[in-house]
């Protein structure tokens, strides 16, 4: 392969691998917010997922079991937030933050004995037929392909199916949905749970595939970035994918170009670029009247509006 081809496949490959946790947790947050629930606990859910996946894989020797458990654990943990914000109608910012801290704390304390442990079997890498012919797609963890496919599927579901209409309507006008006989509480619970599952899976990818090992703080702010990307993506899974890969490519390039460009400048790029892009896109959005779901962060109480 030519030097340029080699270079491109290297960059694309690293971008795909690095962006997975960011993409998965962004997709989850998009669904939660589309239903009207702001979940600031993504970072903690990821940490819980990463830890539980690692612990299960460590004892059972089966990383796939770890993946399944991480989704269940983080999904169930996110129900705490759903209970507080949907059923108890508390402030979503506070309960989300609390969930985040709780997740970080619990995984940190329980995970103490797993720090520095070596995993016997980690998630395998695959070559997919046809796809592996593309530069950068040669061989990857299954999460890489799955997250890419999931972004498209979730976009389709959200904008082209009845379920998607229901979710979006609940986030816009829960009272009208309620009047039409849609179970607002159930939809919101389900979306928050789904977001939690994806956050947990992105943690599992970190501790079983990307690293692979467990240590406290290994999520390194990705959960927070996911919340920012959700806004950047205008609550659209496809834009979420673009944002996650954009961040990933800039992150990787910041190391590739270090010999030529000042590392301090390069380090800021992955964060600076979304900021600039965000301000452009938001001007565009203002013209087209695209904004956050109207009822985002507002608890719904029957008969109060």
């Amino acid at each position, binding site marked *: 392969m030519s030097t340029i081809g080699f*270079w491109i496949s*290297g960059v694309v490959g*690293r971008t795909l691998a*690095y962006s997975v946790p960011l993409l998965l947790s962004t997709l989850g947050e998009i669904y939660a917010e589309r239903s009207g629930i702001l979940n600031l606990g993504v970072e903690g859910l990821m940490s819980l997922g990463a830890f539980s996946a690692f612990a299960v894989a460590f004892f059972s020797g089966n990383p796939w079991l770890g993946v399944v458990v991480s989704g269940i654990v983080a999904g169930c943990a996110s129900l705490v937030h759903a209970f507080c914000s949907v059923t108890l109608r508390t402030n979503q910012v506070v309960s989300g933050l609390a969930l985040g801290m709780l997740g970080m704390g619990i995984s*940190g304390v329980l*995970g*103490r004995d797993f*720090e*520095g442990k*070596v995993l016997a079997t980690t998630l395998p890498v695959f070559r997919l037929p046809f796809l592996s012919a593309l530069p950068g797609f040669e061989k990857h963890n299954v999460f890489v392909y799955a997250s890419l496919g999931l972004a498209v599927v979730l976009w389709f579901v959200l904008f082209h199916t009845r379920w998607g209409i229901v979710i979006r309507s609940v986030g816009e006008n829960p009272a009208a949905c309620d009047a039409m006989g849609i179970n607002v509480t159930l939809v919101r619970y389900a979306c928050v749970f789904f977001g939690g599952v994806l956050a947990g899976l992105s943690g599992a990818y970190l501790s079983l595939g*990307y*690293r*692979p*090992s467990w*240590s*406290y*703080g*290994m999520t*390194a702010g*990705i959960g927070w970035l996911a919340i920012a990307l959700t806004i950047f993506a205008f609550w659209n899974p496809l834009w979420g994918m673009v944002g996650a890969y954009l961040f990933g490519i800039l*992150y*990787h390039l910041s*190391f*590739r170009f*270090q*010999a030529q460009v*000042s*590392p*301090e400048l390069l*380090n800021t790029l992955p964060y600076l670029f979304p900021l600039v892009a965000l301000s452009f896109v938001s001007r565009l959005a203002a013209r087209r009247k695209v904004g956050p779901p109207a009822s985002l962060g507002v608890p719904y109480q029957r008969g109060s509006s």
Partner: protein
Amino acid sequence: MKRFTVGVLLVFLLCFGFVALGNTQEAKIKAGFIYVGPIGDFGWSYAHDQARRIVDDTYPWLETVYVEAVPEGEVEGVIDRLINQEGVDVVVTTSFGFMDGTLSAAQRYPDKIFFHCSGFKRAPNMATYMADFHQVYYLNGVIAGALTKSNKLGYVGAFPIPELKRHINAFALGARRVNPNAEVLVRWLQTSWYDPAGAKEAAESLIAEGADVLAFTEDSPTVVQVAAEHGLPSFGHYSPMYKFAPDFVASGQLVHWEAIYLDFFAKVYAGLYTPKNLENVDYWWLLREGAVELGADFGMPINPVFEEQLRSTIVNDPVYGETSVYDLVFTLLKAMADPEYAFSPFTGPIRDRKGNLRVSEGVRLTMDELITMEWAAEGITGAWPGEPEK
């Protein structure tokens, strides 16, 4: 129910009473350790905590407590808590960034003893210490120079500070002793001492640029794991990382902070060190004092997997003549561990990569010159923030 409550209370009181009694009879010194990272980082803070456990177990008169993951700006508050609530007599702060906070606390508590790692500010009640790796990195460089096929060695560094520059220079000098064509490609993280994602992408980008042997300074085994995924040799940092990739960790740098702690606390206990005479107490311990060790794991200076290759690589060394790299490593190790410091990696003539003569023929750098080193040795490529022109 009431009687039950009273009973429980009584049991508690009795327990506390006994614990208190036990304390007054045993511990004579209480020490508080403050770590910048989590003790599970498998790097810097982990190594300090392992050493804390050893001194705690060794000295029956010593009791220790620790606080982990303390942000560098918050150290003073943590010191206040350790002294006022835990009642510690000695505070050990284990990060360069704790320096000013420790000094200011030392001035506020003149009758307590402070022991700060890797800094340069001292006080009558504040001593400093460091176990430095530059000799070990030199030996790692010798091994790396023999193992590379592409003549490109990769190095992931957390921050461009003199300590790392010294270590990368030593690594490059060692590599070029056996392989004059060896280059060291450097990538900086500049985010945190613990940044697994950054270390992973930095290591991947080094490999993409042709590096086939990796070394690093960051507090996780990430670089070792990435190198192993690509089937490349690497060097562990701070703690034994052999187990993360038994076929690929060629060697590494290991620390024995306990060597310093055992000496220091014994002298505090014996009354040799008091809050009045620490102004000039500065431990700068190396191979000779047993504070650092060459190895993939304790007691394994070179991974047996690489022994054959290193034995069959014969070089013509300027000092020792025709020798295998394997033997050269142990000859140099012996020379550096010698009580007389028979050899120092930073012995002239050494030029930096801009051509300036940094160490004149036959001259050996002093400790002060080592700890303020900013220049980059020949053979290093990549950004070098703070590089002096002359």
